[in-house]
């Protein structure tokens, strides 16, 4: 009897430790903020945002074999108001509790929208305004219908609204009131509804999260005991930390470290995800205003060479979105053909064709910008261009990007990698006249009445299947127009210790860490 009791106690102890502590080396230069929508780009969302918090609509990250799409989150359903195509009705999940024990209600949704958008209320947080505003450009207002139903109004009909609201994370009004809207205090005691709860953080060093055992989605209660997040901006430091056993998982190992990591028995996981590495072009002034020059630039590139240079850690980019995207369609592909490129330049009367490309020396999602840009220059020069690379740091390039060609007419293209997670960010923002920079992300001021009409049709089409057809047509049109210089899609590499089990890499910028365990 005593032996059986001892054995059961031992087994229980092993079970309690079975999940282990997962320590992740992030590429971020610092810990993401914990007051809601995080900073540090989508890495902040991946490790902190979607772990501490939920949005009304989440991303389904459970399957790595297909492109991710949205799924119910704090809202169980949503539909457009049949009487008003600018009004979305959201049914909220019942029985959800914040980490601080308060109930999640419709009032909380209304409060959260004020918190991010209304500077006249005490709960307004300018940093959250800064973070959420990018996804709320079409937001007009929200109203409570009953305790479990809210209605959002958009400024213009917007069939893509569910995608936009998926980036807006909900924080606890209870905790915010408790700390008297002191967001510095809130950051030390954040409260969401997410699968992890905040445990502690040492500024600039590490943040520790623990499972939220009461998470509403029982299938996503974290299986590990603790998640530790460590900022490690230097790639060689991350590699050394993994090899020395200091961390179990690193983001974005550099391509030249892959063989060393594999040799040490580490798992290297890669998967295509909604990312592109392209050049946005200047349509207002200079050679790229001519479609033939844009097509020539696309024909000039040998993407296979670039893949080899990156040790295989990219997919050749022939379109704005990767082929696994539902609206990829059958676009015109610009396979490497320098002779054709030169012929097009000759036809356009631009030989040699002088172009200036603004590039960064590093940056979020920029992969290996310097060698990649050098190869692009070499390919384009060989096909009749004379490329001048204008390097700058990431911050400066972001400023050039946001200000648009109006302020930078002599830059012919910018090399800024983009997320293509949802249809608006993947396609529309590059070519819609209403999205001209600085108002939007159409940096080069592309404008085409046919494309604008197509875009308006997409916004007004609430039937998913029909909208998919329109989106496919838009992607094919963008390829035909050579609206960008398509180069590469990142494969989202990460390396992890052989002890890490259960991770399914989704085709997304976001990842689900909840199924991960560590074997002893």
């Amino acid at each position, binding site marked *: 009897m005593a032996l059986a009791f001892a054995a059961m106690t031992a087994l229980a102890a092993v079970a309690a430790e079975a999940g282990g502590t997962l320590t992740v080396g992030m590429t971020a230069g610092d810990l993401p903020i914990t007051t809601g929508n995080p*900073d540090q780009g989508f890495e902040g969302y991946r490790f902190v945002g979607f772990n501490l918090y939920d949005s009304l609509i989440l991303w389904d990250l459970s399957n790595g074999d297909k492109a991710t799409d949205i799924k119910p989150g704090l809202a169980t359903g949503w539909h457009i108001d049949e009487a008003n195509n600018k009004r979305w009705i959201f049914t909220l999940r019942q029985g959800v509790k914040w980490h601080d024990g308060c109930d999640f209600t419709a009032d909380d949704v209304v409060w959260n929208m004020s918190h991010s958008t209304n500077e006249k209320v005490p709960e307004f947080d300018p940093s959250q305004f800064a973070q959420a505003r990018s996804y709320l450009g079409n937001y007009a207002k929200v109203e409570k219908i009953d305790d479990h139903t809210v209605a959002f109004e958009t400024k213009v009909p917007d069939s893509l609204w569910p995608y936009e609201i998926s980036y807006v994370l909900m924080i606890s009004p209870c905790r915010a009131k408790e700390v008297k809207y002191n967001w510095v205090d809130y950051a030390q005691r954040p409260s969401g509804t997410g699968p992890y709860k905040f445990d502690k953080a040492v500024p600039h060093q590490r943040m520790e999260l623990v499972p939220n055992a009461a998470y509403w989605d029982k299938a996503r209660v974290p299986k590990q005991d603790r998640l530790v997040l460590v900022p490690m901006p230097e790639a060689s430091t991350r590699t050394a930390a993994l090899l020395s056993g*200091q961390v179990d998982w690193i983001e974005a190992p550099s391509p030249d470290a892959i063989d060393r990591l594999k040799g040490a028995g580490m798992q290297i996981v890669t998967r295509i995800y909604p990312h592109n590495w392209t050049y946005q072009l200047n349509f207002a002034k200079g050679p790229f205003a001519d479609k033939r020059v844009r097509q020539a630039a696309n024909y000039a590139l040998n993407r296979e060479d670039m893949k080899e240079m990156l040790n295989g850690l990219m997919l050749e980019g022939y379109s704005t979105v990767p082929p696994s995207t539902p609206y990829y369609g059958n676009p015109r592909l610009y396979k490497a053909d320098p002779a054709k490129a030169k012929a097009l330049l000759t036809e356009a009367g631009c030989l040699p064709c002088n172009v200036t490309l603004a590039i960064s020396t590093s940056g979020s999602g920029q992969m290996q910008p310097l060698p990649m840009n050098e190869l692009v220059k070499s390919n384009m020069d060989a096909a009749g261009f004379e490329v001048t690379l204008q390097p700058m740091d990431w911050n400066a390039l972001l400023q050039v990007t946001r200000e648009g060609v109006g302020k930078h007419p002599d830059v012919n293209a910018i090399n800024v990698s983009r997320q293509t997670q949802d249809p608006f960010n993947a396609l529309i923002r590059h070519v819609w006249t209403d999205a001209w920079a600085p108002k939007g992300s159409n940096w080069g001021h592309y404008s085409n009445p046919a494309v604008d009409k197509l875009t308006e049709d997409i916004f007004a089409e609430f039937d998913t299947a029909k909208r998919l057809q329109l989106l496919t047509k838009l992607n094919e049109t963008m390829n035909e127009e050579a609206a960008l210089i398509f180069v590469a899609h990142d494969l989202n590499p990460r390396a992890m210790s052989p002890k890490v089990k259960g991770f399914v890499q989704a085709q997304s910028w976001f990842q689900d860490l909840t199924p991960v365990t560590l074997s002893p």
Partner: protein
Amino acid sequence: MMFYILRRILYAIPIAFGVSVVCFALVYIAPGDPLQTVMPPDATAETIEIVKKAYGFDKPLPMQFLIWLGRVLTGDLGMSISTRRPVILEVSEALANTSLLALFAVPLAFLTGYVMGAIAGSFPGRWIDRLVTGTAVVGVSLPNYWLGIVLVIFFAVEYMLLPATGMGPNGSTGFHILEWSSAKFLVLPVITLSMIPVGILSRTTRAAVAEVRNQDFVQTLRAKGLSEWAVTRHVLKNSLPQVLAVMGLQFGYLIGGSILVETVFTWPGSGFLLSKAIINRDVPVLQGTILTLSLVFVATNLVIDLLQSLIDPRIRRA
């Protein structure tokens, strides 16, 4: 002496003011903008303009500077744009972390460098001099970030004796210097950080010792029949002011933090803070850190000057 100290402190005020003006101007001359990096990648310029207003970055530059200066005079360095924590807290924590490195790197570098230089200077032209000088050249020439990576590969990756990065194990909330689990995080960054000062100090000390040994009074001491050890003591004392000046500069360098070493080891010190502030254009942190570090340099130089004048009163009179 008091007048001398007061005069030196008064000199520090325009220096600190000048540094703050220059650093403020440099931040704004550089391309980029304080809010570009903290905003999401998809934020538009229009959104950034709205947020600029909320943070007060829409005001004319001279006005922003005066507002900042007014706050500084009351001890308020503002709030970090990136972390939203008070800058004074960010800077003091970072400075404490760097000081921890310096606490070990300073004696290691100064003692090693001084002893090596004194030995080499005492035996000029001999094999020991050549060995020390050669070692010093290597120490000065090796890029310390490269040395840091090599040490990590050797001690952390290959032999797993020491941690590769960070400042403390998981679960800890503070650095406990008396516990090996924390203290081992110091070893590699301290060695890396010390290498350049060791080289510089040994070369400076060697030159100073060799120079003093050739002065006439040394011949006089020997003629009086003093032992070689007693002569060496006089030589070392007379070479000290020159060495102290270089030690002061190196102390400032160590306490100011090394961007490269702290980045390689992800050590959250002032160099790491400064590099992040530059990348993010976190203007309040950048200004606060540069101002604090410049004051540390000014104070260090003041202390060194006072020490020099104590050792050699001729300096004070000059």
